[in-house]
């Protein structure tokens, strides 16, 4: 017998529309890729950094397509169910644990980037911890609201994010010199691929779709349609590549020194010198996208943790994961250089498995799941 009072809200059905997932990727992906990543890619690929973004993005899209295939095959199965069909209960739990850790580690750079951006551009001497406690409260609040509210966030923001990118495009294109992109592949494809490999954890955002498996709402008549998710993913990758091209075109060989390209790309516009930096409105809107990116990663980590023990509430796993993420930020603090070293040396192989290899195998897992459960 439930003790729930009459007026208490009934637990929401945690489902998300395919359209919302498409919008979600468009909202969270491009902005988060335009803070530190351009300079990190340019460190290896120099003028061909946009190519690194393109190749990495296309690889991500391929993974997205394969995960979408898995959704078509077994729409009702979540990640734990799929893993369990091949690796058994214990194996599935180990993988879910690894995913939980992976998503937490993936959230760290995004949060660090936001913090650094805020410190450098809005607040010069702001203490780290007191600033980020409110951030974490809102982050945990957003993540524990679950898939449904994240989907609604995407529905709400996609238009504004599109407008923000549009504004930045208009303001920055006048300072772009596209000859900065040439010559293409002067040193061969090596530096381009090296740039991707060294920064692999900055890619693979579509792996977050794994946390939404089994929660996607299908109308009976459109079970086979996965194009809304793919379209959103393609728009996200396209926007990230477009702005990477613009970044290289605007900054030329100095891209490597442009830590927060997104905040600087439009500042040389003649409009802004007369009217003040109203491009900040666009940047602030994109910061919401970056915030949502970390919320989705925290949600994905919490969802993986929840599936390990099979609980119903998302509050406890979100609190645990949020506390772990906060501890991670406190321990690493401002020591991003060391963290980056660890990420690019040790985490890259793990990321290759968790964000590329395993998601790419999900159609096979889904097929096996379907055979087992629909036999």
């Amino acid at each position, binding site marked *: 017998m439930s003790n729930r009072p009459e007026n208490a809200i009934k637990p929401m059905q945690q489902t998300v529309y395919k359209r919302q997932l498409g919008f979600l990727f468009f909202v969270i992906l491009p902005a988060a890729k335009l803070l530190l990543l351009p300079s990190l890619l340019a460190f290896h690929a120099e003028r061909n950094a946009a190519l690194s973004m393109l190749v990495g993005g296309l690889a991500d899209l391929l993974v997205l397509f394969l995960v979408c295939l898995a959704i078509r095959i077994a729409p009702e199965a979540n990640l734990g169910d799929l893993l369990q069909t091949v690796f058994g209960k214990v194996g599935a739990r180990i993988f879910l644990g690894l995913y939980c850790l992976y998503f937490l580690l993936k959230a760290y750079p995004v949060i660090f980037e936001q913090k650094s951006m805020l410190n450098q551009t809005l607040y010069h001497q702001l203490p780290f911890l007191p600033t980020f406690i409110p951030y974490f409260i809102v982050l945990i609040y957003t993540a524990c609201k679950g898939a*449904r509210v994240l989907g609604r966030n995407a529905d709400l923001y996609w238009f504004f994010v599109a407008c923000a990118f549009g504004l930045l495009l208009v303001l920055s294109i006048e300072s772009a010199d596209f000859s900065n992109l040439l010559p293409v592949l002067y040193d061969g494809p090596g530096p381009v691929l090296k740039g991707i490999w060294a920064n692999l954890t900055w890619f693979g955002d579509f792996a977050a779709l794994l946390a939404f498996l089994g929660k996607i709402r299908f109308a009976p008549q459109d079970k086979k349609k996965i194009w809304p998710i793919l379209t959103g993913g393609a728009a996200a990758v396209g926007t990230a590549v477009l702005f990477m091209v613009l970044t290289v075109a605007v900054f030329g060989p100095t891209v490597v020194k442009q830590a927060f390209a997104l905040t600087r790309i439009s500042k040389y516009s003649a409009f802004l010198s007369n009217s003040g930096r109203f491009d900040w409105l666009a940047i602030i809107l994109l910061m919401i996208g970056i915030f949502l990116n970390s919320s989705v990663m925290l949600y994905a980590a919490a969802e993986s943790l929840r599936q390990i023990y099979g609980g119903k509430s998302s509050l406890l796993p979100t609190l645990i994961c949020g506390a772990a993420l906060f501890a991670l930020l406190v321990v690493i603090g401002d020591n991003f250089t060391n963290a980056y070293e660890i990420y690019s040396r040790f985490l890259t192989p793990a990321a290759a498995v968790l964000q590329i290899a395993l998601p790419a195998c999900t159609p096979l897992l889904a097929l096996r799941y379907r055979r087992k459960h629909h036999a």
Partner: protein
Amino acid sequence: MNKAEQKTGRMSSDLEQNIGYLETFFHGNFDIKFRNFKLACGTKACAVFLDGMTDRIEIDEYIVMALQREGQKDDVNSILEQILNSAEAEIQSDMEELCHGVLNGDTVLLVDGQDQGLLLGTRKWGTRGILEPPTSAVLKGPREGFNEDLKTNMTLIRRKLRSKALVFQSFEVGKYSNTAVCLCYLDDIVDKKIVKQVTDKLQKIEIDGILDSSYIAKFLEIRTHSIFKQVGTAEKPDIVAAKLLEGRIALIVDGSPIVLTLPFLLLEDLQSPEDYYERRFRSTFARIIRFLGIIMSVLVPALYVSAQVYNLGMIPLRFTVTILNSIKGIPLSPALEMFFVVLIFEILNEASVRMPKYVGMALSIVGALVLGETAVSAGIVSTPALMIMAISAISLYTVPELQNALSILRLAFLLLAGVMGVYGVLLGVIFTLNYLLSLESYGTPYFAPFAPLVPQDMKDSVVKQELTDMTTRPKSFRNRNSIRLKAEKDGKSH
């Protein structure tokens, strides 16, 4: 036998005993009148009624006088069928029901030797006229508004929707107030699950008294401690009729001129009845203004403070120079200064709502001239701060329905801006939106049709389409019979 009968609530055939029961029941209240008289045939009878809630002329002329002249038979069936010409009358043998009828303004007729009484509809009391409600004034469109009388309000709705599908379901709520509450919906359109949910909630309400519809709203809300209302309110029958036609339900509460509607979407507060009587371009423009009004009322003071404290670069250079000149010498910090101005405004606002009208002019002079002008010339607050507050205050009244929630949010955002600047405001916005996105009203997302995106319902959102384009009922909430307009394809022009 008689006493045993009356203990179980059944009438006795002894008139004196029945009168005794009623006197005991009403504790000798002086406004309960017992009019003893004799029928034409000589049988004793008594009319019992509540003074002040009944039509005395009807009692005198059409009940007492009619029975004295023509009451040749003394059984209640004959009296009902041959003598009385009341439109509303029923035979009742349950004393509880009869007492209840008296309290509602009906007249009870007791006849000696009869173990049944007559309950005659004689309700009448003074009510306000049908006036234009001050909070929903329009330039175009109907101007009639609800008043405190349930029957009048029902009639106003019925006059708009003369259909057999219009259902009025009656309830009584309140242990002592026994307030009549009327649930109203269009049977062909409404989702029956919502009707059942609301009916269940109404039946479970256990409270001493319902003095206004807002009491009922508290019981119907999902999150009772929220600063956002989750039940729609309307003061005009055309608004309620439009909502009923969309598949919503309405609740009319006796004694309240405000009718409740469910399910409720936040978007409804952006809509004005006039939008539907104007050209769609004007309506769209007005809605965009209201939307901007919401944003400006909440965020402008906060952004002004955060720009001053942390991010002066956000303001164009020429403005920066002007602002810096104006704030020179102000002893308070920007956040405290704005907080002070907001607080003064809230006090003035609260006072102006409650004070007698004849001192309104004096308050305007004191508030606007003395306080504003002298505070600036004394160097306590700056001119930009006052101007920002004025913009915010005026913007707040573009959406009066949201005034309470927005004024609280404005203070919260001001606090965040003072402590953390734009970043704090941004976190506040994200938090508030997430809260709103998680709210639901009877299975309807509060932020629909924006999130979740319902493209069909965007026709009546910020950008308003012409009435002829809105062919389907809203899909944001459950309803049946989705087609509401069969538009002619030929010759359609915009």
